[in-house]
């Protein structure tokens, strides 16, 4: 549908304003007319968004709106049917999930996907895999490079676990962690891959209010420390309204509103389609 040549950088038909500090730089992610059909059923259609270099963006919407599907398309777990994704100005059309990660997108999963039988530290070290530089052979013969790089990876893993004060859990088995710790470990693992854009799929699900408040601080801290963009899917409105600078609302696979938290909160379309319904559910 979209001819890649027609789409120019930053020429998005978008109401979304980048945060002021990012305004002079090209967005980290630009998505135009993104859509996917599952056997004739359109799950997501005409999805457009631009995310600033250090923006925290929110993607919200009722259950089944297609939010996770958007993440799956961005990371090429699903191949989009149409549209275009520019990551840091580069077209990702022919990239695989692995290449997308190497190009700079890391993610967490709604239904936690850890390496359950491995230790917490090893989970993070797998995130560091592409930044740990020694060959299969060096690993087997324990060449000096192995020891050097392993030491580096070990220290880096503990540093990253330190973001959530999880150093003490380094030797625990990932699958045996409590739910909240598993969610935090997924974030650490994603960060270990050195992304430019971090996608968080319901990071606060299953957390209590105080854990959620802590998570909000940590997401901000991550953005400030690593100077990366964060895009998150979340149902907890306190978290979304509290930390997101730009929000897109998805309903039935289409964006129905975009704007700042205050704009979204006062948008009658959103209130009717999403917030209203949300209240009824409770």
């Amino acid at each position, binding site marked *: 549908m979209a001819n890649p040549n027609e789409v120019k950088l930053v020429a998005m038909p978008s109401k979304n304003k980048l945060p002021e500090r990012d305004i002079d730089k090209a967005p980290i992610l630009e998505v135009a007319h993104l859509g996917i059909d599952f056997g004739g059923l359109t799950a997501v259609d005409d999805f457009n968004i631009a995310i600033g270099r250090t923006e925290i963006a929110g993607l919200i919407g009722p259950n089944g709106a297609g939010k*996770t599907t958007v993440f*799956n398309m961005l990371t090429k777990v*699903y191949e989009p049917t149409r549209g275009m994704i520019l990551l840091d100005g580069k077209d990702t059309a022919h990239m695989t999930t692995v290449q997308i990660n190497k190009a700079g997108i890391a993610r967490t999963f709604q239904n936690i996907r850890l390496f359950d039988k491995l230790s917490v530290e090893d989970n993070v070290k797998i995130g560091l895999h592409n930044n740990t530089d020694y060959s299969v052979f060096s690993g087997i013969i324990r060449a000096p490079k192995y020891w050097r790089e392993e030491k580096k990876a070990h220290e880096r893993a503990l540093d990253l676990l330190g973001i959530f004060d999880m150093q003490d859990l380094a030797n625990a088995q990932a699958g045996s962690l409590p739910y909240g710790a598993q969610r935090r470990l997924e974030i650490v693992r994603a960060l270990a891959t050195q992304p430019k854009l971090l996608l968080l799929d319901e990071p606060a699900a299953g957390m209590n209010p105080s854990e959620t408040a802590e998570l909000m601080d940590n997401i901000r801290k991550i953005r400030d420390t690593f100077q990366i963009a964060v895009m998150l899917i979340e149902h907890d409105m306190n978290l979304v309204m509290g930390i997101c600078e730009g929000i897109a609302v998805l309903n039935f696979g289409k964006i129905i509103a975009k704007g700042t938290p205050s704009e979204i909160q006062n948008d009658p379309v959103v209130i009717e389609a999403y917030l209203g319904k949300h209240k009824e559910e409770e």
Partner: protein
Amino acid sequence: MTFLSHVINGISLGSVYAIIALGYTMVYGIAKMLNFAHGDVIMIGGYMCFIATMSLHLGTIPSILIAVIVCTLLGIVIERLAYKPLRSASSLAVLITAIGVSYFLQNAALLIWSSNTKSFKSVVAGVQPVKLFGDKLSISAEAILTIAVSVVIMICLTLFTGKSKMGKAMRAVSEDRGAAQLMGINVNKTISMTFAIGSGLAAIAGVLLLSSYSSLTPTTGSMPGIKAFTAAVFGGIGSIPGAMLGGILLGVIEILGKAYISQELSDAIVFAVLIIVLIFKPTGLLGKKIKEKV
């Protein structure tokens, strides 16, 4: 004309594979396990029929009936003793147990009947082959019987799974065991029934197979078992029409490969075709595509 006769022999052999493959595929669909002992049930069926005719001097029909009844009971007993305690264990643990059962059956047969090859008398011995096209094409009575029996079995099984209450329960259990249980379906009884049907069919397959290829030993069942397992995967494991299609195709490929390419390499050809098919259709010919939810 020779080509046609090879094809008919292939369909006949393939029908046997299909009947065995049905047992594999039904058990896989419902119990989610690879029952490696299935091939050895064929062998037990063969011995039962052999004893009934040779030692007990029974007629053909009662002998086959005895084989079917013994194998059906054997299937139920195996499931009850060896597999049921492992309902919630990993599939690999169940697979190894099934291999243990297979060793058990083979070695029990070895003790009881020794490793000497028994010559199995065809159940339609003495019936003249059918001659067609002025004697140019001769079809053995065994081939006709095998094809006819397998057609009847397939029709019955399709009706059974489609229309009967137990058949519907089987489909429900294979679709979602937990949900089926919540709907009041007795899962244990359904699984037991599946083993009974699969093993009963294996007995029939054994009799048919041995009628065409007469030598009977304690390991008679293992190669046809592996081939039938291959056929089940070829057609898409868990799918009943897939097992039928896979079995017949495998038989035809095997016989044609033997006749036109190489006698020694016929098994290699069968397996090579399987690999090629799976590379292009990773879940078999009629298998369901499973998409992982992310």
